[in-house]
């Protein structure tokens, strides 16, 4: 636990909070990008280089762009005329707080039961690569299949329905 961790945690949480509270959708999307970046830095802080960079590549490079595209395509960049929160927001906040309470309690309760090791793990990119195409090759293939299916599905779902509908 050091200052860097506190700083990164603060940035991440601030980004997340801003994302759900900001009125403007584009601002929310940019805020969530900050949160994604914060999480990537937390991964780096946890000695997970590969995952950290993959996080930046996937979330900042792709998902954030997807989100802003979706916002523009749904005219979400215009400010809504009604409020941004729905009717039951107070109850929802209570529920979210309860979820946090339960998880936090669970973390503090059970942490002593977990064996812990503070030394940094010795893992090179080579090990990650070997694991990906060795022991975890089947999940990797399945993820590839899933991504292909999702790409095709997304294209078909979002495609313009041409003359057929008229």
């Amino acid at each position, binding site marked *: 636990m050091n200052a860097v961790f506190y700083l990164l*945690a603060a940035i991440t949480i601030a980004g*997340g909070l801003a994302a759900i509270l900001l009125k403007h959708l584009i601002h929310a*999307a940019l805020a969530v990008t900050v*949160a994604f970046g914060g*999480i990537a830095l937390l991964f780096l802080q946890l000695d997970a280089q590969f995952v950290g960079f*993959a996080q930046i590549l996937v979330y900042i490079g792709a*998902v954030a762009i997807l989100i802003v595209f*979706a916002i523009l395509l749904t005219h979400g960049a215009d400010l809504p005329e009604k409020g941004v929160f729905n009717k039951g927001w107070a109850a929802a906040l209570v529920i979210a707080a309860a979820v946090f309470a339960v998880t936090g309690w669970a973390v503090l309760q059970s942490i002593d039961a977990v064996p812990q090791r503070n030394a940094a793990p010795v893992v090179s990119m080579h090990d990650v690569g070997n694991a990906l195409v060795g022991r975890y090759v089947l999940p990797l293939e399945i993820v590839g299949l899933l991504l292909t299916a999702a790409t095709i599905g*997304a294209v078909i779902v979002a495609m313009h329905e041409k003359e057929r509908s008229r």
Partner: protein
Amino acid sequence: MTAFPSPLVGYLLVAAVLFAIGLAGALIRRNAIIVLISIELMLNSANLNLIAFWRFGPHSSALTGMMFAIFSIAVAAAEAAVGLGLVISIYRHTNTAELDKINRLKG
């Protein structure tokens, strides 16, 4: 300057906070895209947990947590693509992306 019994707890609590923020966002916002953003936040918090356990857990050379996070990121990317495609498609049909106006599946 350790405020927590161990560093792991810090990361887990950050993840819990993020998860709660994501859940709150998914519950209180009316816009479907923000709900999707919130879901991404929740997924990320789960990834943070996985990596934290991998880092401080006993068998870091098995790479299980890291692999799980990698696959989770890939799945999340697919989820984002399909989810946003759905939102766009719904927007085309109903001319709105606000979730409380979309209740055609009412029982």
